[in-house]
């Protein structure tokens, strides 16, 4: 017997994935603005931020309604709680994309500091993490979610590498301090996006299996 609240849950999922699509696009465009030196794309990211914020509010409203009207249990309850948390992560990803787009506008006022090698690598991994985390939501795929978690260390390592490398440029030539510092901030933004993708993946494991894999060191007895 299909219960009528499943329609509400499906719509909630659809809206979350719509928002996920917007956040993915924002990140991809913001990174391209830097890598391809394209000011227009950066402006587009800034213009589209409102859509993500509106989706956050709409999804929150839906979560409140579903929780108030249906006495959800077990996997359904966990799913709605996970949607609420993923909603926040996606909005924060949108904010990070905006930060990158703003950094892009500043970076583009200066000559290129160096050829970009690690940044494209890092953004490819981070965008892949986001895509797979959202696919894991759709497919309720714990294995895919776990594959997102293990990529977080690669992202952290790349951030440290970019930081070290740009620091040497800054020490050698003070005229590159401003753009190099913005590139460091961009690496930091990408690393935070990876963290949000990791949170989403952890939420998938939580709602599918009921296991809370956040903070393994915490004693849950």
């Amino acid at each position, binding site marked *: *017997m*299909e*219960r*009528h*609240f499943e*329609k*509400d849950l499906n*719509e909630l999922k*659809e*809206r979350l*994935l*719509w928002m996920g*699509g*917007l956040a*993915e*696009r924002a990140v*991809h465009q913001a990174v391209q603005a830097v890598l391809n030196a394209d000011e227009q794309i950066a402006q587009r990211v800034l213009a589209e931020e409102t859509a993500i914020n509106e989706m956050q509010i*709409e999804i929150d*409203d*839906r979560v*409140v*309604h*579903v929780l*108030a*009207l*249906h*006495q959800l249990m077990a996997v359904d309850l966990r799913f709605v709680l996970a949607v609420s948390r993923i909603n926040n992560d996606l909005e924060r990803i949108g904010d990070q994309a905006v930060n990158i787009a703003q950094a892009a506008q500043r970076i583009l006022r200066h000559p290129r500091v160096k050829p970009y090698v690690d940044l494209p690598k890092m953004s490819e991994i981070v*965008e892949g993490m986001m*895509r797979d985390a*959202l*696919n894991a939501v*759709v*497919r309720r795929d714990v294995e895919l979610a776990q594959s997102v978690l293990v990529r977080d260390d690669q992202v952290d390592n790349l951030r440290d590498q970019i930081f070290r490398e740009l620091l040497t440029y800054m020490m050698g030539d003070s005229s590159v301090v401003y753009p190099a510092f913005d590139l460091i901030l961009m690496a930091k933004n990408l690393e935070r996006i990876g963290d949000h993708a990791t949170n989403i993946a952890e939420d998938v494991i939580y709602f599918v299996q009921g296991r809370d894999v956040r903070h393994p060191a915490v004693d849950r007895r």
Partner: protein
Amino acid sequence: MSAATRLLFSVPAGPLSGATGRAMSSEQPMRMNISKLNFFYGEKQVLFDISLGVTSARLTALIGPSGCGKSTLLRTLNRMHETIRNARLDGEITLDGESIFVQDVTQFRRRIGMVFQKPNPFPKSIFDNVAYGPRINGTSRPLSELVEASLRRAALWDEVKDQLHKSAYELSGGQQQRLCIARALAVEPEVLLLDEPCSALDPISTAKIEELLVQLKSSCTIVIVTHNMQQAARVSDFTAFLLNGSLIEFSPTPQLFTTPVDSRTEAYITGRFG
């Protein structure tokens, strides 16, 4: 969007329905209208100046603590109070714009079906229970077709189709209640009134009745009295909260259960009294 092949930037197209997936169009016409209704048992007044509209093809729930007058209000909607000695009513109730009190009561009650708390099938076969109303009222459709259609609408057909001539008493409580709903539907009422229809049923049977009501409301206006406010939240489009015979709040259900306006409604739905 295919669930398994979600791609980058795959933003679904087209609008989805309202925030809860429940249509809340204010354009839907009113089927019944209750206006300044006061009701007395002898000298004791039990309903005070109640006005509310029952929207067509929607489910309206009446909730409130025991003795708040919700069942009394429901019973006035098909003039059942007229069978009670010393009961007195003033105010107006209309069905499709026409006062229900000027109509022939028997004709009028054919337009308003009623289902009670305890399943009350007739001591007859399943078939005869459903066919009872159409036989008395007359029908142009073949009886067997009408019985099947009514049992299907009541989500009971698949369970009883091979035993239509068995006694209705052989059915489970939940099945008997769905049979009573089928019996009410067989005369094709415009409005279906249900007075705590699940209170004598187990959770699985309750869930079946709730799903049935959600399906039925597109073709029949429904008013339900329930002491179970979670049930009202789950199935209804509009909810009226009554307290001590007064209508405290009447709103679209999502609004009443998330942002009630009156502090008494909030206290009741959060379990702080009643």
